[in-house]
C-alpha cells in the first residue's frame, strides 16, 4: 500500500535538510528514488533476511562513519554525524520503498531480537517512514541557517504530519487551537533555552581551564613550580617524527625560546612576530642563506603536531631553515626562532629541513639579565663552582658535571614555598627536580659568567613506535633545556639527568597500546584527509563503490521483480451489476465523507439507521426504498419512478445538511 502522504512529508523534510546544510542537490537525489518508487508498478521482492542484511550493511557504514568522525574531530564529530543522518539511514528506507511494503521486520534493526524462525509469535514490524522523517528533520538542524525560518518550517512539517494522523472525531477547531498553542509554547521555550545557555556559559567560563592540550604561548611559559604532589603529564601523543635515519640520541625539537625569568615565569618582554611569505604554495623559507647553500642531501624530518585551534607554534629542529609540504595559510617567525603557523585544526604535518645553524637572533641584553631575586643564590653557586675563572667551554663542562654528579630527577614536589626559595631549595637542599628546574638553573647559572642563554621548551623525541614506523613524543615528553651562545653560535645544553624519560614511562598504563592505536588511526585519517586529497581519495571511492555493488548484487540475486497487478473489486466478476448508476450513490459518497463510515458488511439500511442527529432520516429511508427496488428487484423501476428518484436525491443534496457535531 502506498503512503503518499508520508513520502511527500519526507520529500519536504529532505528539501529542508538540503537547504540548511547546503546540500540541495544531494537532497533531491535522495528524494527522487523514493518518489519514483511510489509511482511505478514494479516491486522488488525483499525477504526478511534481506532486510536483515541491509540493516547490517547500514550499521557497518554507520559505525565506520562514526569512527572516522570521532577520531578526526573528537567531540565535534558528532555534528558531522548529525548532518549525515539522511545518508546513513537511506538504504533502509529505500529498501522499504523498493519492496513496496508497508513496514519492515523490527528484528532487522535489532540483532538481539533475531530469533530462530521456528518461533510462532507474530513478527513485529515497523514502518520506517515516520522514523526516517524524524531523523531527517533532526538532521536538518545541523545546519545553522536562519533560525526563525527553520522554526517555521519544522512547525509546518509537524502540522502536516499531525494532520495526516488526525482522527475524524477531533473537531478541526480544537485541533488548530491546540496546534497553535503548542507552536507558540515551543517558540517561548526555545527562546528561554537560548537565554539559559548564555547565562550558563558565563558562569562556566570562569571555571574552565585548558589542561588537556598545552598550547604553547610564545610569549610566556609558566614553570610548574608551585604544584604540590607528583607532576604527571599524560601519555597522549603530541608529536610524530619521521626520520630516514635512526636517532642515536634523543632529538630535541624546539617550540619556543624565552629570555627573562621573573616570578617563576620565563617570558619574552619584547617579542614580535614577522610574517614570512611562502615561496610556493606550501613552502616557507626562514633562513635564505641556508636554503641557498645547495645541499645535495638535505637533512629533514617529517614532523606532525596537533593543532587545537587555527594557529600554533610548531616544534622544529633548532637549525630549521625551510619547511615544506604543509598547506598552511600563513607562517610567522619571531626573533627567538619560534615559528607560528596558521592552519585549520587537526594534525599538521610538515617537512623541516635543517642544518647546524640555529634559527634565532643574536643575543641581546636580556639574554644576560638575572632578576635580582635570584642573583645572590646564583652568584654564590658560581663562586662555589669557581666558574668565574674558567673559559666558557670549561664553564659549560663544569656546570654539566655539577648537575650530573649531584642531582637526580624527580617529578615530586613536597613543600610549598615561594619561587626564589624553591630555586635555592633545588640547588642546595633537595638536589632533585624535573627538567624545568635543570633548564632554569643552567640558563641562569651561565648568565652569571656572562654567557648569553635562553630557556627553550619543546619535545624530546626518543620513543620509536613500531606500529607507526616513526618516532613519537607524548605529553610527558615535553622538555625544557638551555641554549647558550658560545663561540658565535647558539648551542644546545641539556642538563636534565638522562634517566628522566625512562622514569616517566615507567608508569605507563596497560591500555596504552590501545590508546596509541586509536591515536594513530585518528592521525592517519586526518592526514589522509588533509594531505592527500588527490590519489587516495580515488582509491577509497573505488573501494566504496565495489562494496555497494556487492551488497546490491546479493540483494538482487535473492529477490525478484514482481509486477503489481491492479485489480479493482468490480472487475473480478463478469457480471455487470444492475443499478450501479443509482442516484443514491451520490448521497452515500457525501455521507461517507461527512459522517460515520460504512463497515464492510453493513447494508445501507443498517448504516443509515446508525446516522445520528439526522432529521432527514425519513427522507433517506424513502430514498433507500427506491434504491433497493432499483438494485435488487429484477423488475426494477419504471422510468418515471427513476426520474422521481433522481429529483428527490438532488433536492436532498441541495438542502442544508446539518454538519457533524
Amino acid at each position, binding site marked *: 500500500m502506498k503512503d503518499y502522504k508520508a513520502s511527500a512529508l519526507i520529500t519536504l523534510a529532505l528539501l529542508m535538510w538540503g537547504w540548511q546544510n547546503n546540500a540541495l542537490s544531494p537532497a533531491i537525489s535522495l528524494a527522487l528514488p523514493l518518489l519514483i518508487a511510489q509511482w511505478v508498478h514494479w516491486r522488488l521482492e525483499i525477504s526478511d533476511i534481506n532486510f536483515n542484511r541491509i540493516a547490517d550493511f547500514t550499521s557497518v557504514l554507520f559505525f565506520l562513519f562514526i569512527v572516522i568522525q570521532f577520531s578526526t574531530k573528537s567531540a565535534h564529530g558528532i555534528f558531522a554525524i548529525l548532518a549525515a543522518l539522511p545518508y546513513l539511514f537511506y538504504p533502509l528506507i529505500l529498501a522499504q520503498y523498493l519492496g513496496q511494503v508497508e513496514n519492515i521486520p523490527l528484528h532487522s534493526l535489532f540483532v538481539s531480537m533475531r530469533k530462530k524462525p521456528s518461533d510462532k509469535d507474530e513478527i513485529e514490524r515497523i514502518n520506517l517512514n515516520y522514523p526516517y522523517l524524524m531523523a531527517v528533520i533532526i538532521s536538518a538542524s545541523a545546519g545553522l541557517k536562519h533560525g526563525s525560518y527553520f522554526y517555521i518550517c519544522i512547525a509546518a512539517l509537524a502540522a502536516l504530519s499531525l494532520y495526516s494522523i488526525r482522527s475524524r472525531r477531533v473537531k478541526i477547531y480544537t485541533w488548530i487551537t491546540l496546534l497553535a498553542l503548542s507552536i507558540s509554547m515551543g517558540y517561548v521555550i526555545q527562546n528561554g533555552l537560548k537565554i539559559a545557555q548564555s547565562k550558563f556559559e558565563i558562569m562556566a567560563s570562569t571555571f574552565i581551564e585548558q589542561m588537556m592540550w598545552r598550547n604553547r604561548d610564545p610569549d610566556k611559559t609558566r614553570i610548574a613550580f608551585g604544584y604540590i604532589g607528583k607532576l604527571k603529564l599524560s601519555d597522549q601523543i603530541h608529536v610524530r617524527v619521521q626520520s630516514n635515519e635512526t636517532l642515536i640520541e634523543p632529538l630535541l625539537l624546539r617550540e619556543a625560546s624565552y629570555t627573562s625569568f621573573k616570578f617563576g615565569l620565563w617570558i619574552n618582554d619584547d617579542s614580535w612576530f614577522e610574517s614570512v611569505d611562502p615561496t610556493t604554495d606550501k613552502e616557507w623559507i626562514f633562513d635564505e642563506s641556508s636554503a641557498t647553500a645547495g645541499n645535495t642531501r638535505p637533512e629533514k624530518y617529517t614532523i606532525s603536531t596537533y593543532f587545537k585551534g587555527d594557529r600554533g607554534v610548531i616544534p622544529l629542529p633548532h637549525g630549521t631553515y625551510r619547511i615544506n609540504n604543509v598547506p598552511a595559510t600563513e607562517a610567522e617567525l619571531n626573533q627567538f626562532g619560534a615559528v607560528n603557523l596558521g592552519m585549520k585544526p587537526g594534525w599538521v604535518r610538515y617537512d623541516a629541513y635543517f642544518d647546524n645553524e640555529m634559527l634565532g637572533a643574536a643575543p641581546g641584553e636580556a639574554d644576560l639579565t638575572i632578576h635580582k631575586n635570584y642573583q645572590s643564590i646564583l652568584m654564590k653557586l658560581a663562586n662555589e663552582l669557581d666558574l668565574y675563572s674558567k673559559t666558557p667551554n670549561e664553564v659549560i663542562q663544569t656546570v654539566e658535571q655539577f648537575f650530573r654528579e649531584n642531582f637526580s630527577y624527580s617529578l615530586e614536589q613536597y613543600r610549598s614555598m615561594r619561587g626564589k626559595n624553591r630555586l635555592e631549595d633545588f640547588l642546595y637542599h633537595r638536589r632533585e627536580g624535573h627538567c624545568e628546574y635543570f633548564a632554569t638553573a643552567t640558563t641562569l647559572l651561565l648568565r652569571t659568567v656572562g654567557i648569553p642563554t635562553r630557556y627553550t621548551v619543546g619535545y624530546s623525541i626518543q620513543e620509536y613506535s613500531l606500529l607507526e614506523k616513526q618516532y613519537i613524543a607524548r605529553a610527558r615528553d615535553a622538555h625544557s633545556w638551555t641554549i647558550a651562545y658560545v663561540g658565535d653560535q647558539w648551542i644546545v645544553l641539556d642538563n636534565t639527568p638522562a634517566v628522566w624519560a625512562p622514569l616517566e614511562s615507567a608508569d605507563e598504563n596497560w591500555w596504552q597500546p590501545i590508546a596509541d592505536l586509536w591515536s594513530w588511526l585518528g592521525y592517519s585519517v586526518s592526514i589522509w584527509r588533509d594531505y592527500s586529497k588527490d590519489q587516495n581519495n580515488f582509491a577509497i571511492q573505488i573501494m566504496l563503490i565495489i562494496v555497494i555493488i556487492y551488497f546490491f548484487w546479493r540483494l538482487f540475486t535473492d529477490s525478484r521483480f514482481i509486477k503489481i497487478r491492479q485489480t479493482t473489486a468490480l472487475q473480478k466478476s463478469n*457480471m455487470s*451489476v444492475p443499478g450501479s448508476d443509482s442516484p443514491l450513490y451520490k448521497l452515500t459518497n457525501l455521507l461517507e465523507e461527512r459522517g460515520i463510515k460504512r463497515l*464492510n*458488511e453493513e*447494508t445501507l439500511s443498517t448504516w443509515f439507521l446508525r446516522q445520528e442527529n439526522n432529521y432527514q432520516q425519513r427522507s433517506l429511508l424513502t430514498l433507500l426504498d427506491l434504491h433497493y427496488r432499483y438494485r*435488487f*428487484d429484477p423488475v426494477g423501476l419504471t422510468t418515471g419512478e427513476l426520474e422521481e428518484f433522481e429529483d428527490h436525491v438532488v433536492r436532498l443534496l441541495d438542502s442544508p445538511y446539518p454538519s457533524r457535531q
Partner: protein
Amino acid sequence: MTGKEIYQKLYDNIGNVIKGQSGAIRKLLAAFFSGGHVLLEDVPGTGKTTLAKALARSIDIQYHRIQFTPDLLPSDILGVSIFDPATQTFNFHQGPVFTNILLADEINRASPRTQSALLEAMAESQVSIDGNILQLNKMFFVIATQNPIEFHGTYPLPEAQMDRFAMRFKLGFVSTESEVMILSDQNKQHPIDTLLPCINHEDVLTLKQSLHEIRISDELKRYIVDIIRATRNIKGVQHGASPRASLALMKTAQALAIFDGKEFVSPDHIQELATTVIAHRIVLDPEALFSGVTAEDVVTETLGNTPVPI
C-alpha cells in the same frame, strides 16, 4: 388477504401468548412458511412447547407432541401395524408423525435409531412401514428441541443430520419487563387455553404460494452463495455449509420479504437470517472447539468479510 397481513395476524396472535420473543417468532414463521424445520436448542422452561402450541392453535391445524425418551422406539413415532384378530389383517395405526405440527421434545434423549426414524420422515415426507409407503401431510412442520445442559446419557444429533433443519436458534430468557408481563398474564389462567385460530389452512397455502413469486436478483443469489462458500474456507472449520444451506437461506429470506410486504429480497433479509440458517451446519475441528471458537463466530466472521451489495 395479502401475505403481509396474514403474517401480521399470525404474529400478533402468537404474541398474545409468547411475550418478549418477537425475533424468535419471526424466525419461526419464516421457517414455517418456507417449508423448513426448526431446531430449538434451549434450557427448559423458556416456552418452547407453548410456542409450538400457539402456532398450531392460531392456524387451527393438527398438533402433536412427542417426548423423546431413551426407550422410545421408531414405531412409537411412525406408527405400528397391529394385528386385528377379527379381520385377520394387520391394521396400520398412524404414529404421531402424521400431523401438521410436530413438537419433538428433547430429541437428543432418544437412541440414534429412533432419531433417524424421525429425521428420515422429515427428509422424505413419507414413511415406509411393512413395505407400505405412506405420505405425510403436505403441511408438515417439525419443531425439535435439544436441552444443552444434560450431556449425560444423551445422544446428540449427528452433524450430518443437523443439515435437515432449516434453522437453529434459541429462545432464551426474556427481558425483565416481559417476564413481569408473563406473570401478570398467567395469573389466572394460561393464555394458550383461550387462544383462537386467526387464519385458516387456505391462508397458509396462499402465503406459501406467494412465496414462490418473490423475486430475488442474481446478485443477491450470488451473495448468498458467496457467504456459504466462504464458510468452507475458514480456519478451524472441518466442514462448511452445503448447498442445502444456500437453498434454505434463500427461501427463508423470501419469507421475510413477504412479511415485510416487499416483492423482492433485500440484503438485510439475508443478513438477518444468515447465522440461524448456517451456524448449525458447520462442523468445527476439535482444535477450534478447544480454543473457544463457536460456529456463530464463524458465520459472523464470514458476514464481516463478505462485501454486501449496496
